[in-house]
């Protein structure tokens, strides 16, 4: 069987890739997808640790994370749609009217 550390290291790698995606890309939808990637990396770590500790609680937390991710996707994409209607752009560098 694969040791749990390998799963955790894979989750860490996926999380780091998601972090790079948020910093690297300027398209807000791709930034959003990178956030989903980071959430999935955290889910993988939860499930791996739940398996190693013989507990079901980790899987239940993954269930809640999925629910929150679905709510986040619905609200976030609605915000993206509304801002695209007003600004006609998805470039995060141009959505800077809150910047002082």
């Amino acid at each position, binding site marked *: *069987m*694969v*040791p*749990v*550390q*390998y799963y*955790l*290291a*894979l989750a*860490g*790698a*996926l*999380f*780091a*890739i998601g*972090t*790079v*995606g948020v*910093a*690297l*890309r*300027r*398209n807000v*939808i*791709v930034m959003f*997808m990178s956030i*989903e*990637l980071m959430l*999935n990396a955290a*889910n*993988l770590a939860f*499930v791996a*640790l*739940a*398996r190693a*500790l013989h507990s*079901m609680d980790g*899987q*239940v937390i*993954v*269930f*809640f994370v*999925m*629910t*929150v*991710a*679905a*709510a986040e*996707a*619905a*609200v976030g*994409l*609605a*915000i993206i*749609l*509304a801002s*695209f*209607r007003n600004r006609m752009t*998805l*470039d995060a560098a141009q959505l800077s009217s809150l910047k002082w």
Partner: protein
Amino acid sequence: MIMGIGEIIFFIVGAVAIASAFGVILHPHPVYSALFLVVALFQIAVLFILLDAEMVAFLQVLVYAGAIMVLFLFVIMLLNLGRDPEAAPASWKLVTLGLGGVLGAELGWFFLRRAVPPAAIGAIDPAYGSVTALARTLFVDHALSFEITSILLLVAMVGAIVLGRRGVD
């Protein structure tokens, strides 16, 4: 070290997951990014099955690869997005990739060298990860959290409708 079937599947699936995650963040076209993300989510579902979490794997495919990704693709096609207008400057790209590499190395080192839990994943009773076990934990131990989640979904639905309405001030 003798590789069992579990190790072989883990390394193949892990490699595909990391490659498609790089595809998500590096491909200039958002539709391809979304499709790479679907591939990555499926690989994570396979890892969930390797970890005896069948129910969570099904939810992963249904909710993430099904519902959430359809929402993403719907918005991308509704907005008729093409390639990114301009990419980030090369120096910034280098800095973020370098910092991300440092973060990944740190996380990998921490988990491989310092992880607290037992190293080997041993045998476990066959009921682990079944729908029955998940439902018992969810509806008995975490019943209050489950009810709060339904309120969260209601609020998110109302918020999405209000934000998505045309002609809002």
